[in-house]
């Protein structure tokens, strides 16, 4: 049979089957099981109505149970067994072996980095885009353009960015946009401005901002507002911010002192430390559209009069945004943030398609795929799958909790 005909047949059978299921199961319920006639007509109608929701829920519950709930327990079991020994129970041996694997810790470390950078950057860019395009005539065009990457699969986006990062040997013309731009730098004034002064100043500003926020926290902690827990959290926050400030200063120092390889095309995806960020850009590019659409709707939902009241009260546009608008959509920001966090924790396609975890870009999902399908080690693969699930679950629960709170 022709594949297209097969496809059509599948659609026909699938959709027809669904309609048939709902029609005949309801007919059975109303006509055979609890017929609405005879001496118990009223009681039968009530019973039929109590059963009916389950008729509609059954297909979803069955499919979710078969394809989601069962695999969780099966994976948990596999993670405690060894295939080489014919599936014998080996306790926590797989986990011990995994924890001794440096590649696993590299994946965990990278996942944490993704976790810090991608949701923050996507939400921030999304919020910026939502605010800038709000109530502007051509805003909807800009929004459609920013949203468009959402329609591209992760693999497709990876292919696009592989072309952007592409490298050709010296002498050939570079087809990668990034290298084409890079080769324009020659160490002159322009290079100094763009490669040293701008990033250096940006990093110094970032360090200053981090230190300023940290100083605010220290002052509040000294006053002791909010009790012991708040003070402890402020302490942790201060240390974290100090670390960020130090890192930013180090980067600024690097920007001014580093020797650049002008005129030499770079293989971007093989530069350890930086290549992970090049991969993250792909996901940020995709997820910004998602964040923008949700946050844009939330911004529209803010009562206009509260903004006007703030203007009458003397707030400037920044104060209106940060003190009136942001707090009113904080619930939505959290939902967007956690939703993207879930996507990030499961990120696989981008790494698989661009570097396959080489050059220190490994992440947990790709590590799992490596072990499960390339090394054919179901024990180790399942163990890493369990780790991913352990990381995702609490964020997922928090996300659902917040989303439901938003809907109320």
């Amino acid at each position, binding site marked *: 049979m022709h594949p297209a005909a097969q496809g059509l047949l599948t659609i026909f059978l699938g959709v027809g089957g669904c309609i048939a299921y709902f029609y005949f199961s309801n007919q059975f319920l109303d006509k055979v099981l609890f017929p609405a006639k005879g001496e118990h007509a009223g009681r039968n109608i009530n019973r039929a109505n109590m059963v009916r929701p389950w008729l509609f829920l059954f297909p979803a519950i069955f499919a979710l149970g078969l394809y989601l709930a069962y695999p969780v327990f099966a994976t948990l079991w596999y993670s405690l067994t060894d295939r080489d020994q014919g599936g014998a129970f080996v306790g926590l041996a797989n986990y011990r072996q995994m924890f001794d694997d440096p590649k696993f810790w590299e994946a965990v470390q990278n996942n944490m980095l993704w976790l810090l950078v991608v949701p923050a950057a996507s939400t921030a860019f999304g919020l910026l885009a939502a605010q800038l395009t709000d109530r502007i005539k051509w805003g909807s065009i800009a929004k459609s353009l920013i949203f468009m990457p959402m329609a591209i699969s992760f693999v497709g986006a990876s292919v696009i960015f592989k072309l952007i990062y592409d490298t050709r040997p010296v002498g050939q013309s570079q087809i990668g946009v990034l290298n084409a731009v890079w080769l324009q730098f020659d160490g002159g004034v322009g290079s100094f401005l763009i490669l040293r002064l701008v990033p250096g100043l940006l990093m110094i500003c970032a360090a200053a901002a981090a230190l300023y926020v940290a100083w605010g926290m220290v002052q509040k902690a000294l006053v002791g507002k909010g009790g012991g827990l708040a003070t402890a959290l402020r302490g942790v926050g201060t240390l974290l911010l100090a670390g960020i400030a130090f890192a930013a200063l180090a980067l600024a120092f690097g920007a001014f002192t580093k020797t650049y390889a002008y005129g030499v095309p770079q293989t971007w995806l093989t530069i350890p430390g930086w290549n992970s960020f090049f991969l993250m850009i792909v996901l940020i590019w995709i997820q910004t559209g998602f964040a923008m659409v949700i946050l844009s709707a939330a911004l529209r939902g803010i*009562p206009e*009069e*509260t903004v*006007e*009241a*703030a*203007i*009458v*009260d*003397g*707030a400037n546009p920044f*104060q209106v945004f940060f*003190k*009136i608008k942001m*707090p*009113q959509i*904080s619930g939505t920001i959290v939902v967007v943030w956690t939703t993207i966090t879930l996507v990030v924790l499961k990120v696989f396609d981008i790494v698989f398609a661009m570097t396959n975890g080489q050059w220190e870009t490994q992440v947990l999902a790709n590590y799992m795929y490596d072990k499960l399908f390339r090394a054919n080690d179901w024990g180790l693969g399942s163990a890493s799958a369990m780790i991913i699930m352990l990381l995702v679950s609490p964020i997922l629960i928090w996300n659902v909790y917040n989303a439901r709170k938003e809907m109320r």
Partner: protein
Amino acid sequence: MADLKLTDIAKTYGGTVEVLKHIDLDIKEGELIVFVGPSGCGKSTLLRMIAGLEKITSGTLEIDGQVVNDVPPAQRGIAMVFQSYALYPHMTVRENMSFALKLAKKSASEIEEAVNKAAQILQLEEYLDRLPKALSGGQRQRVAIGRSIVRDPKVYLFDEPLSNLDAALRVATRIEIAQLKESMPESTMIYVTHDQVEAMTLASRIVVLANKGIAQVGTPLELYERPENEFVAQFIGSPSMNLLAGEIIETGTQTVVTLDGGGTVTSAVPTRDNEKGLRVNVGVRPEDMLETTGDDYLFEGKVNFTEALGEVTLLYFNKVGDNDAVIGKLPGVHAGLRGKSVRMKAEPEKVQVFHNGKSLYYR
């Protein structure tokens, strides 16, 4: 604490849609001015232009002699109470009230003092640490007013502040606003409403807006007793003033008009000799119509329908000619009048005479 002067103010949207034009208005310090008008007449737009939330298309707005057309809202010395209260939902009552002062970089003790004082005036002391969602409608309205008071503005602007409250609360809050105004005799207030009762009870002067301009400015009783035109005559008062077409037959210090319906009426409005034979509309308020059996009646008609309200009875007469249905308002209960033919008269002082929509009293 300030005078306002509006000179030839106009508002146009998108260069074509004219909302307001030729608005001239002098507001003196300590006045409570009420803008009323039918919906869509631009009263809220005018208020928002004074607030600085809408741009003034042309004309000048002066506060205390200083042109403020291009001064941002916060620096105009105004405070505004919005229809929906517009409380910041994420801030407590205290934070809501102190927000403006914090932005103005006032000291903590100053803010504390101002907020406590406002809370005391508005009886909000026990709610200071609550969020707006934990307050009732009336309390939210008081917080919105408190947010204005703490700023100690020159001019208070109210945009239909009571329209979201239920009827009983509306009366109570109306009285609170009147008392608040009394306690701050030197502050200027501008109040927008579509509710006549609010306008009549609160205003020191009412501005009636209609047809993109000002129909009349005056004290509540001036508007009620001496409307300048048919629009104001019918807009103020409920049920609205009856208008009956007729012709002047006698001029002088008093005017006599024969009405198309057959009656005659004497009005205290003076007319000139050459106005004999002029086609006019005679205006009489339902409550000024008196039942009569004599031949000196202004209107005779069959009572089509009655509404007994206890203190008064409303009589709806059959339509005669092109006039709107005439309504009479008699004190007490008159259950038996339905279906009967009744003659009505009116005292000369209570009879208005309009020609081409304008009152002959003003000229």
